[in-house]
């Protein structure tokens, strides 16, 4: 293997020059000639019957080309929006979803009509002229209330509101609880969150009726799946549909699944024979881009008095919203990951998906793993508190230490060193010092708290065997293609896509190192279904490096093998007599006999190839990982709560994480910074709130939905341990979601610890000043 130059180096990002100078290529930057603009008329009601839609006034408004309603789109789009078949046969009610409502609207913001006009100002004006007459129906807002028999139904046709109800048994839970010396129980709320990428969504489509080709540009994490879904719905062969996502201004999961507008825009473009574009406003984004979390857990943990963990039993009630999110079922993995990094005798998780009259929930950064981690880490702290043991010590007592480690559900953690990260984090944060300061502070009435979160996650989706069933037959592997061009530069294609993760840089480092060429010679392409391999599986679940990066590595190795054979032929030696170093094949024992890989590449397009060897130097590879990868780490947060106002100050935040071998430490740290900030933000600030009676959204703009500024995010101290993954050749694991998975628990454990002298055991999120003040008031009175 070539001596590594780039892997492991802090290479500055190649994406940046265009982005820092204002030359990024975001969806709204594309303005083709003849472009028409679409505005969407949306339901103001969470639940209502549509009595009539009057479009005449809008249709005759200046610049309007069309006003379209459901019946216009039924002629264009067949079938319903996709839902993963996960949980069959336990899946219960799955309401059918068409991109635009016909008779009944089931959440505020559901499309009921679209206006297409010459410019967006005119489209916005005309949208106000569409008159929709509604007959409001009772709205189901609270998922637990929606489960009660006799509850109003989220869909009038539905039998009830139960989307799924499934129990995962991991061991003999009754036996585990029978041995318990202590049990603790808690009710843990995961508020709804709006993913809020800074770039809202957007779709632009152009249809050419002459050759029946459709091109869609959109802001997406998942262009190939979008092509699959839209081509199917529009009855156009997949091969004649091209989906392109260029620069994507953040996604965090909210740009994985198909949205109504992804269908409506191309359909309108086909109806009108002109390019049509829709750009989401922030108000639409908060209202209709799929939310994350929205779950309430009840949990019970059993342990011995010496701190030995025995059993964990939990029920997840998941607020599906008005329809199943395409990949929403994934969030049930909270149950499978609720055991965390610990050895439990048994874990049992029941998940109930409940329909309500709200926008659907779908994966948001971490998707099920933050919820599982939060629950596990809270319950472990509760046990520690109950038996009077230091929470760090209790963690150590129960850590899994033998790897591979099979958890209660048979998921196999590939490698880990949980003591290593916790030890390092405790040292960095000065754990014993803070415990002392906490004790002294308490004497003076100060509320200082220290919270640990020792986390593990499952990521890197595949493997094919486990994932094919979850996505309707398409297994989550990853594809890559590398083409060595005659003059020695390389075009590399991968089926993942980036929304800020720096894949262009990281993947080029891998390709350049593996082929022994300078990084400048590697052109990394992604996000365009017209290029590269036939399918790509997208970016989510921290899979891009551990699956996509490995597909690239695999393709590069295929190229290297062929190049070595050709080099042997050129040098008239057996390929086995060659070494490959720094891009050069040399004859063992005669280093002057050598060919650079660029020379070999040129030769691959020339004459005199070995017998049986085809021309060219390119490879397409699919990587099907044998297992998931299992990053882990330890976060410790120190907070102080203002007893009078409930305001939380984070004194210190330390994170020691382990994602195996690191390709680009700068990017890994950046991913952690951002991920941790989002988890802290969930813990302290963000919440999508609905009026419990009317079902109307209360946090409809960025004024009320609290994305923090720089001033609200504390300084973050990062470090890492390195435990390579045995799952892939480079020993890497994902890191995109890790920070978010770990951090909410660290913050809330710290706040709960701070308030524990008042007899408060648990604090829900967001830990707003008002919420904490009320809890303190109640505890003190």
């Amino acid at each position, binding site marked *: 293997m070539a001596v590594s130059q780039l892997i492991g180096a802090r290479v500055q990002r190649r994406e940046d020059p265009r982005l820092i100078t204002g030359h990024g290529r975001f969806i709204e930057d594309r303005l083709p000639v003849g472009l028409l603009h679409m505005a969407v008329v949306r339901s103001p009601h969470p639940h209502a019957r549509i009595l009539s839609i009057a479009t005449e006034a809008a249709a005759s408004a200046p610049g309007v080309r069309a006003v379209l309603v459901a019946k216009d789109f039924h002629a264009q789009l067949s079938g319903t929006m996709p839902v993963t078949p996960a949980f069959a046969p336990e899946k219960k009610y799955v309401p059918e979803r068409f991109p635009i409502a016909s008779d009944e609207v089931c959440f505020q913001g559901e499309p009921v009509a679209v206006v297409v006009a010459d410019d967006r100002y005119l489209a916005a004006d005309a949208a106000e002229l569409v008159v929709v007459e509604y007959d409001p129906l009772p709205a189901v807002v609270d998922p637990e209330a929606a489960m009660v028999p006799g509850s109003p139904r989220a869909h009038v046709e539905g039998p009830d509101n139960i989307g799924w109800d499934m129990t995962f048994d991991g061991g003999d839970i009754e036996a585990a609880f029978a041995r318990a010396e202590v049990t603790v129980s808690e009710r843990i709320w995961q508020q709804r969150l709006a993913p809020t990428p*800074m770039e809202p969504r957007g779709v632009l489509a152009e249809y050419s009726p002459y050759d029946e080709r459709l091109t869609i540009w959109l802001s997406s994490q998942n262009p190939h799946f979008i092509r699959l879904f839209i081509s199917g719905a529009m009855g156009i062969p997949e091969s004649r549909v091209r989906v392109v996502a260029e*620069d994507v201004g953040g996604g965090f999961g909210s740009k994985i699944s198909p949205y109504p507008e992804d269908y409506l825009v191309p359909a309108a473009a086909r109806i009108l024979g002109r390019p049509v574009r829709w750009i989401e406003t922030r108000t639409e984004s908060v209202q209709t881009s799929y939310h994350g979390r929205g779950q309430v857990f009840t949990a019970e943990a059993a342990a011995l008095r010496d701190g030995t963990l025995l059993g964990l039993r939990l029920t997840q009630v998941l607020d599906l919203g008005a329809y199943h999110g395409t990949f929403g079922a994934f969030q049930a993995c909270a149950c499978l990951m609720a055991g965390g990094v610990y050895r439990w005798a048994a874990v049992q998780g029941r998940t109930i998906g409940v329909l309500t009259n709200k926008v659907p929930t779908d994966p948001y950064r971490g998707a099920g793993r933050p919820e599982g981690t939060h629950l596990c880490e809270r319950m472990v702290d509760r046990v520690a508190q109950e038996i009077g043991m230091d929470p760090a010590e209790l963690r150590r007592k129960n850590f899994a230490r033998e790897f591979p480690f099979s958890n209660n559900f048979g998921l196999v953690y590939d490698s880990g060193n949980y003591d290593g990260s916790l030890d390092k984090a405790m040292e960095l944060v000065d754990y014993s010092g803070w415990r002392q300061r906490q004790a002294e502070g308490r004497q003076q009435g100060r509320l200082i708290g220290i919270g640990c979160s020792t986390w593990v996650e499952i990521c890197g989706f595949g493997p094919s065997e486990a994932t094919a069933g979850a996505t309707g037959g398409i297994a989550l592997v990853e594809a890559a293609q590398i083409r060595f061009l005659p003059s020695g530069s390389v075009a590399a294609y991968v089926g993942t896509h980036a929304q800020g993760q720096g894949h262009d840089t990281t993947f080029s480092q891998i390709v350049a190192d593996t082929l022994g060429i300078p990084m400048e010679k590697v052109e990394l392409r992604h996000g365009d279904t017209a290029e590269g391999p036939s399918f790509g599986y997208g970016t989510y679940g921290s899979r891009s490096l551990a699956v996509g990066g490995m597909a690239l590595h695999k393709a590069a190795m295929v190229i290297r093998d062929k190049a070595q054979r050709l080099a042997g032929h050129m040098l008239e030696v057996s390929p086995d007599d060659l070494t490959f170093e720094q891009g050069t094949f040399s004859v063992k024992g005669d280093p002057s006999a050598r060919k650079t890989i660029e020379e070999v590449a040129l030769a691959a397009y020339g004459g005199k190839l070995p017998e049986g060897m085809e021309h060219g130097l390119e490879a397409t590879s699919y990587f099907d990982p044998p297992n998931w990868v299992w990053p882990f780490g330890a976060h410790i947060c120190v907070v102080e709560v203002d007893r009078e106002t409930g305001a939380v100050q984070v004194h210190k935040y330390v994170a020691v994480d382990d994602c195996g071998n690191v390709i680009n430490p700068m990017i890994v740290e*950046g991913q952690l910074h951002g991920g941790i900030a989002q988890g802290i933000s969930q813990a302290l600030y963000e919440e999508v709130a609905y009026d419990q009676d009317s079902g109307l959204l209360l946090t409809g703009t960025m004024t009320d939905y609290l994305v923090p500024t720089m001033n609200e995010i504390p300084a973050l101290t990062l470090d890492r341990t390195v435990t390579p993954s045995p799952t892939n050749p480079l020993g890497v694991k994902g890191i995109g979601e890790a920070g978010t998975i770990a951090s909410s628990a660290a913050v809330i454990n710290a706040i709960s610890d701070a308030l524990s002298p008042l007899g408060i055991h648990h604090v829900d999120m967001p830990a707003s000043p008002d919420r904490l003040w009320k809890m303190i008031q109640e505890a003190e009175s």
Partner: protein
Amino acid sequence: MAQLVRLTVNGSPRQEEVEPRLLLVHYLRERCGLTGTHVGCDTSQCGACTVLCNGQPVKSCSMLAVQAEGMAITTIEGLAPADGMHPLQTAFWEEHGLQCGFCTPGFIMAATALLAENPDPTDEEIGRGLEGNLCRCTGYVNIRRAVHKAAAAMREGAGAAAPMGG
């Protein structure tokens, strides 16, 4: 009724008729073709649309194009000559101060205004100077580092070029 507006954008004088309701950000993006200035919200929170008006930072989504009458506007594209980078751009690149890059032009413009007023800001002053800008990717850690680094470079005179038109 269209309204005449005369202004300077990145050093070039312009004069044209616009609808009064045309937001400055849309004027810059769609009339001037300067798509580096982004729209991230409807309510003047996110700061992605920040540009300089006569050297002062404004959110161009909360200003009408007609209100820029007589003003010199600087956008991210005009911050440095086409073949060079402003020290803030260099520092954002070197310090990994951006991920998806959508908020970045707004941050760089706001930071330009901050450093013009305060060449050696503390952590807290950077926070307050950039409180009108939201980033969802970076956790702000490296943005703060980048601003410190650029400030140091500009104090040493490494290309403390005044923004064009600013």
